[in-house]
């Protein structure tokens, strides 16, 4: 790790955690049970494009562990860690294929995230009937993924180059 990127790591991890916290404050979920805004993923998406895959993975894991320890309930880590890692893997795959813009990559990540979370939930509760809520949740999270992807696009267009130069 280059030393000048260490500072970017810290700042971006902090930013991702702040977004997690904002999300936690808004938590009583808005449309469908189980679906959140996912604004923390905005940071991860920008990092993925500006700094690279390893950096995105590192910041994502840091964010998930710290924010679930600080803000969330006891077994939040159980839901968010597998979902976070798998959805990032999906996003890296989607980005590497270079068939999609950040919007498509973000949609992939959001949908993957919600699907993994629902499977973890059905495993924890012990019945598959939880999955019956999945279709609606997928629609909402795909829409959220699209919105965040559009925001990420405009962020990348305006500050992406500056960040890259420093990082």
């Amino acid at each position, binding site marked *: 790790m280059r030393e000048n990127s260490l500072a970017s790591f810290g700042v971006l991890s902090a930013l991702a955690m702040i977004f997690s916290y904002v999300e936690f404050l808004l938590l009583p979920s808005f449309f469908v*049970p189980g679906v959140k805004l996912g604004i923390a993923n905005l940071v991860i998406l920008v990092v993925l494009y500006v700094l690279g895959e390893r950096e995105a993975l590192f910041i994502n894991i840091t964010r998930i562990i710290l924010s679930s320890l600080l803000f969330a309930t006891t077994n939040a880590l159980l839901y968010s860690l597998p979902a976070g890692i798998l959805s990032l893997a999906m996003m890296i795959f989607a980005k590497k294929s270079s068939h999609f813009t950040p919007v498509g990559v973000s949609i992939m990540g959001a949908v993957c995230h919600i699907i993994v979370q629902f499977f973890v939930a059905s495993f*924890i*509760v012990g019945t598959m*009937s*939880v*999955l019956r809520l999945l279709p609606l949740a*997928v629609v909402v999270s795909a829409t959220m993924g699209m919105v965040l992807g559009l925001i990420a696009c405009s962020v990348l267009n305006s500050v992406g180059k500056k960040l890259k130069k420093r990082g």
Partner: protein
Amino acid sequence: MEKLKKQRRNDRILFACILAAALFSYVFLGSNRTFFGANVVVKSEGKTVYTLPLKEDTSITVKNSHEEENTVVIKNGVVKVQNSTCKNHDCEKITLKKGSGNVIVCLPNKLIVEIVNDENDLDGVM
């Protein structure tokens, strides 16, 4: 810029595919629609603890092994969860009716409430 156009098109195709898949699974797989002779099944920690007829108005309190409680209320064919000891109270926002093919989940307390066909009621077989 030809590439960007292609990528944008792929984004749209992806989004449409996801919506189509969700709609398909909602219509054909997900919803266990019931119209006659329905029962309300209450599951706690993966085990069925109560099976109640939807027709009768009742109210039961379910306690799990961690002493966390939810009250399941059936009134006029509508099922609700009240007085949950969980934090988010998501489970209190959903109501179940016959044919809605929905399910109430209280994730923190590991409680599931759903409406299923009464297999003993022959009128209910479609």
